[in-house]
């Protein structure tokens, strides 16, 4: 199992598959390349989805929360931060009481925002079944 991520635009369409060589079952490392993608696409950026490679519901880690807040501080805009497990998708968004207060949006939103094939592809990339190149 390996964590994986994709960057998406405000319509939920995938802009970039983030599969760094140093990814593991427990982490995606800091990446200058990922930041460059976020910055270059900031005008139409929607957020970053990443996996927690297991089944069941999952919330953001401490590392996740500080990354969410730092990226939004850098970009000057709020984003959506889906966490994808093998059977759930929870989309987190800043809620407003302090800088690390992110809460899950209603679960049905994921089905409206994303193409099911993209979510399944992300899960497959976390299972190590495929390695997709960015176009």
């Amino acid at each position, binding site marked *: 199992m390996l964590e994986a991520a994709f960057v998406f635009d405000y319509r939920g369409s995938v802009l970039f598959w983030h599969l760094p060589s140093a990814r593991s079952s*427990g982490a995606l490392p*800091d990446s*200058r390349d990922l930041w460059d993608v976020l910055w270059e696409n900031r005008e139409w950026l929607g957020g970053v989805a990443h996996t927690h490679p297991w089944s069941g519901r999952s*919330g953001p*880690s401490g*590392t*996740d929360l*500080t990354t969410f807040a*730092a990226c939004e501080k850098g970009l000057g805009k709020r984003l959506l931060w889906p966490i994808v497990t093998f059977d759930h998708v929870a989309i987190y968004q800043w809620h407003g009481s302090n800088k690390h207060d992110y809460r899950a949006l209603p679960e049905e939103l994921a089905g409206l925002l994303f193409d099911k094939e993209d979510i399944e592809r992300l899960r497959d990339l976390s299972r190590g079944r495929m390695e997709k190149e960015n176009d």
Partner: protein
Amino acid sequence: MTDEIMVMPEGMARLNITIEGMNGDVPDFISYDLSDGEIKTIASESVESGYVPGIEGVTDADFTDFVVDRFPATAGVAFNRLVLRPKTPFGTTLL
């Protein structure tokens, strides 16, 4: 009219900052060997005082969860660069 050529002293660097959707270089050169913490302090003070061209109106320049990328001078870029940007790791260690 003459063109002024700026020469960077040895061991110094240009600091680039990104915050609140804006990006700019601190006008003064700083030491390339400063610690990340020292660089963040300089960045906060420079941004909050409105000293960085291209970055305006930021009163809370908190760079706690930012990282410093260090790019030494090369044949193509004749000066050292320090780039302060948000960190981007994700992890599954739950709070």
